């Protein structure tokens, strides 16, 4: 059996290779999906952790256990400590550091040194494990290993704050009035050192030592042996710092589950604090679900195309093998045997396909991760792709689909015997979809979807903003529309051909005549491949537009919101009087240094205050943003698209420049607050200084200004509120309020890198309080897993379908030539020139191929115009400010057309090559055998 199978496969090696290609691509595409996602989600999760660090300046994954006890008879503390150490194993995350912090309640002490306030002095004794490794000694030394000095006094170190606020001295000994050791002896402590807290990147100190005013740190081992027992009341905190960089996306569900158990059900739930990281993981989870759903929806049409390709090719192969099958059948082989033969063949192809497909899938995943735009990659930047259990589940599913796609046509064909084969061939059938009017139904359904979605366009972005994913129906409608229109085109295509024939029949030679007739009578045979071609091109165009639109809008939005290449604000200390109280006047940092930035084209000073407000009544404040700027410098450096405001951007800046105390207001001051040009507006800066200005004009958009602010409520719904802006002159603000802390907006040279700025900041020893870097933000925006994944899936999908389309198209034509070899021979014998046959085939290609390409382009354009705005809305972010624009880049389309043209030309060349190799007399002989 195996030998027969291999023999049979070798005879149809090209067909089988195409099938194998289909298998490989289907498995690779399917497998790339979980692989890419795992890698992208790992990255996304780490991003979430890093965001947390930059926002909260704290370790993102900590679990805290705390307990108070008066008398620890049962060694509860010891048990909790042990339990805390075991949590790493329970969670399945490695340990970064465990910090145990023991703290005894404050007690009165008497110093050996006579002093005025001696009566009131009270100090706490505490210990932190690992303190000596993390603290920096300012004076004295750390406590010793045994923790007591020669006289038996407990050695302690104190923070600077404790030292100064309590007026302690290095080397001072103090004795507790009430606290006694287990033996009943009084306890004396000795200050041996002064330490200071953390360096910024050290997350060891969960309690900032600078905020400890009365705590003396002693040796933790000594502390445990002396005080954890029956004799003292204390508070203990255990901090488990998890090794978060090792946490992968696949662990999130388990972490959540274990955390929930620990906090709600474990025997120690009462001592465990709800950890912060839960909200990080929750946010991540919402994003992940949204991305997974979106990418899945995008990927399904590609997988369907792949499966139908396999069905098509295997169907075509069985069609070619029909004679053999029917002969075998007539000689007495059972249907089961024939079926088994095909199932073996399917298994062989599927398993071989998996061997190549799974590693190829990893490559696909890497390419997905390096997608920069539609059909554009940056291979330097790749994801860390690793296999996991999911990979193999997906691979298994894909293998099942390929096996079924290859074997199902065999069921139909194994029934055929030589008798009904001949009968079948004589029957000419209308396709089922034509009879059922599937095309009309599909178009109807998708148009219904289109109109109902268009009505609720605003709702879409709101739903999406509240964390829900792309509505599958929305995407399905666009796919259905494409399929429906494609089928509809196939329905009318024969009539178009007929019409062209009627018009041109006077001029058509014999070759053209045959092409026309072939197409009119036998066109149905080509429907599948034509539909394939139409769908590839229209989906390709649609996807190119989707990808380009989403990306460009995200990029221009980022560009707009950041305003300048670099924005930085230095630390502005406030002047103090002799007593050290702030005077309200700021010390302006030296700005001459900015003139030495050789990597920048220009810079300008901008006052930016987003906590300013206007007042209506006494308690009625409306928050607004105030910007004060040099109109000329600012206008030269920033840009704004012409179509965003009624007039050009510079027109407004010029208007403002003309009025010394003028202000430009955001449009909502006019529409919501009812103000008018020429009015005077009074407003207050964030620290309450008031000034006023004359309204010059209203703007809808202004660099970095977002007219509304969308926040996601705790209940998960998105809420949008007005955001106001007042723009005035820098000089006028300075004149009114004196020098206020301003930002520096910098326009970088084209070849400058962000590192230039960092180096500059470091070399000038600047203390920066605000830093915006557009190129980094842009990078972050463009590598957002949702955007990048969408782009990647769309691009890969297109690449895969165009490849299949080329193979399918070529196979169709090779088969069609093989099938008609005899007829070509006859025609040649009757005096047809080779060129006439080529002409005939080219005309046929025009009717099938070129028509499909044109239809694909038309349908693609129509679908883009209709559905992209809606799809785009489903990629909305709360940061999206600019109105969405449908963007189609000519270069994308040319690239698409180029690929299609190469494919079609290759097909024509292969066909001509085959044709010229064909020998007339041989072809005729073929027919005789």
């Amino acid at each position, binding site marked *: 059996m195996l030998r027969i199978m291999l023999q049979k496969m070798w005879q149809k090696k090209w067909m089988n290779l195409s099938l194998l290609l289909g298998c490989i691509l289907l498995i690779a595409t399917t497998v790339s999906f979980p692989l890419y996602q795992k890698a992208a989600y790992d990255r996304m999760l780490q991003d979430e952790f890093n965001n947390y660090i930059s926002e909260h300046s704290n370790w993102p994954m900590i679990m805290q256990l705390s307990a108070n006890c008066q008398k620890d008879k049962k060694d509860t503390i010891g048990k909790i400590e042990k339990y805390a150490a075991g949590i790493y194993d329970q969670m399945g995350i490695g340990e970064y550091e465990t910090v145990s912090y023991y703290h005894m309640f404050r007690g009165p002490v008497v110093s050996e040194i006579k002093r005025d306030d001696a009566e009131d002095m009270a100090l706490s004794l505490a210990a932190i494990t690992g303190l000596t490794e993390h603290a920096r000694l300012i004076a004295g030394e750390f406590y010793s290993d045994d923790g007591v000095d020669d006289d038996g006094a407990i050695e302690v170190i104190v923070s600077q704050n404790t030292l100064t606020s309590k007026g302690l001295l290095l080397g001072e000994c103090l004795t507790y009035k009430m606290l006694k050791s287990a033996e009943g002896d009084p306890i004396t402590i000795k200050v041996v050192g002064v330490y200071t807290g953390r360096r910024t990147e050290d997350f060891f100190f969960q309690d900032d030592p600078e905020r400890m005013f009365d705590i003396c740190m002693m040796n933790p081992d000594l502390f445990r042996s002396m005080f954890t027992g029956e004799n003292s009341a204390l508070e203990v905190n255990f901090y488990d710092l998890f090794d978060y960089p090792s946490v992968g996306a696949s662990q999130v569900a388990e972490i959540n589950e274990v955390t929930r158990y620990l906090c709600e059900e474990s025997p120690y739930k009462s001592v465990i604090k709800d950890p912060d990281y839960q909200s990080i993981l929750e946010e991540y989870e919402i994003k992940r679900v949204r991305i997974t759903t979106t990418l899945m929806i995008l990927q399904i049409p590609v997988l369907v195309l792949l499966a139908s390709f396999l069905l098509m090719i295997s169907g075509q192969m069985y069609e070619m093998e029909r004679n053999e099958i029917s002969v075998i059948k007539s000689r007495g082989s059972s249907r089961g045997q024939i079926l088994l033969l095909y199932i073996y063949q399917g298994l062989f192809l599927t398993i071989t396909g998996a061997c190549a497909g799974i590693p190829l899938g990893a490559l696909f995943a890497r390419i997905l991760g390096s997608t920069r735009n539609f059909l554009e990659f940056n291979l330097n930047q790749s994801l860390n792709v690793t296999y996991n259990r999911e990979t193999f589940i997906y691979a298994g599913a894909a293998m099942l689909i390929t096996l079924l796609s290859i074997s199902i046509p065999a069921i139909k064909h194994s029934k055929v015997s030589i008798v009904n084969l001949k009968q079948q061939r004589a029957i000419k059938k209308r396709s089922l979809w034509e009879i059922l009017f599937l095309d009309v139904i599909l178009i109807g359904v998708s148009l219904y979807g289109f109109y109902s979605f268009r009505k609720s366009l605003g709702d879409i972005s709101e739903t999406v903003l509240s964390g829900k994913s792309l509505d599958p129906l929305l995407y399905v409608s666009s796919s259905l529309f494409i399929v429906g229109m494609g089928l509809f085109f196939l329905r009318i295509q024969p009539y178009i051909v007929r019409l062209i024939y009627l018009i041109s029949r006077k001029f058509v*030679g014999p070759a053209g*005549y045959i092409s026309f*007739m072939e197409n009119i009578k*036998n066109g149905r045979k080509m429907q599948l491949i034509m539909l394939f071609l139409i769908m590839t091109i229209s989906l390709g165009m649609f996807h190119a537009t989707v990808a380009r639109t989403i990306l460009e809008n995200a990029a221009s939005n980022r560009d707009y919101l950041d305003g300048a290449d670099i924005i930085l604000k230095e630390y502005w200390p406030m002047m103090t009087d002799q007593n050290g109280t702030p005077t309200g006047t700021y010390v302006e940092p030296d700005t001459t240094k900015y003139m030495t930035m050789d990597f920048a084209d220009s810079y300008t000073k901008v006052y930016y205050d987003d906590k300013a407000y206007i007042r209506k009544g006494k308690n009625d404040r409306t928050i607004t943003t105030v910007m004060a700027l040099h109109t000329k410098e600012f206008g030269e450096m920033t840009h704004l698209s012409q179509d965003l405001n009624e007039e050009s951007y510079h027109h407004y800046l010029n208007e403002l420049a003309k009025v010394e105390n003028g202000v430009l207001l955001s449009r909502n001051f006019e529409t919501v607050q009812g103000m008018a040009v020429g009015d005077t507006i009074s407003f207050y800066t964030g620290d309450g200084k008031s000034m006023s200005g004359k309204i010059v004009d209203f703007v809808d958009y202004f660099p970095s200004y977002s007219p509304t602010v969308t926040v996601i409520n705790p209940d998960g719904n998105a809420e949008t509120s007005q955001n106001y802006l007042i723009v005035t002159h820098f000089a006028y603000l300075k004149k009114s309020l004196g020098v206020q802390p301003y930002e520096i907006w910098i326009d970088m040279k084209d070849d400058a890198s962000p590192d230039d700025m960092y180096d500059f900041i470091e070399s000038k020893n600047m203390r920066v309080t605000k830093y915006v870097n557009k190129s980094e933000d842009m990078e972050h925006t463009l590598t957002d897993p949702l955007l990048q994944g969408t782009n990647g899936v769309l691009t890969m999908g297109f690449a895969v379908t165009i490849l299949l389309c080329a193979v399918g198209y070529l196979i169709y034509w090779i088969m069609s030539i093989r099938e008609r070899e005899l007829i070509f021979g006859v025609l040649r014998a*009757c005096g047809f020139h080779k060129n006439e046959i080529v002409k005939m085939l080219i005309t046929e290609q025009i009717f099938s191929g070129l028509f499909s390409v044109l239809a694909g382009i038309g349908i693609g354009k129509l679908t883009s115009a209709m559905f992209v705005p809606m799809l785009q809305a489903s990629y909305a972010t709360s940061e999206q400010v600019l109105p969405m624009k449908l963007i189609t880049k000519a270069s994308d389309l040319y690239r698409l057309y180029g690929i299609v043209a190469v494919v079609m030309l290759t097909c024509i060349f292969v066909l001509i090559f085959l044709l010229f190799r064909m020998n007339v007399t041989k072809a005729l002989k073929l027919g005789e055998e």
Partner: protein
Amino acid sequence: MSEAIIRTKGIKRAFDTPAGKFWALKGIDIEIPEGKFVILRGRSGSGKTTLMNIINSLDDPTEGDVFIEGTNLKDLTERERENLRRTRMGFVFQSVSLIPSLNAFQNVEFSMRMAGQKINKESAKRVEDCLKLVGLGNRMNHMSAEMSGGEQQRVAIARALAHRPGIIFADEPTAELDSAMAARVTEIFKEMTRREGITVLMTTHDVGLMGAADMIIELDNGERIIRDTENADA
């Protein structure tokens, strides 16, 4: 007797085989007068089809000359030969040779299109006449898949005839037909020579059909066998 429409002089044809040159034809001289029904007979491998393909210009002889209506084929370019085949020759092949996307009428009409003749009412009349001649006047709109092998072959004959060629070449046209149908087809050829004055050159190995021929050329092992009486073979 009119002048020979087909004349060959010393036709030799060699094929290269691993064992050296194989001579399929070893010097054939024939002269066929216009308007005759000629049967080219011989066993399989005797060189019938090779000779036929050389005469109808699909193949070139290794040596020798072919004259069609007085013209030496060697003097013609590839294009001119194709033109000759389109206008002056008609072909009937052993197996199904109809164009599947055309119906019977269109198939027959197609030879007129190929020959560059005007397609109009007259041409339609001609197509009908040809189909009637082969007994298919009532099946003009049928597709080839809807017809039997014999019917298809008759359509092919009508097609070979429609553009009024000088010669019709029929290579084993009866091989796939039953004997009654084979006899019918042979009759049609015979009738064509009578009615239209067309020369028909048909190859066959079916002995039963020889009676209809005006002339029999027999080949054996690449050589022509001259017999005393044309119909004496048994």
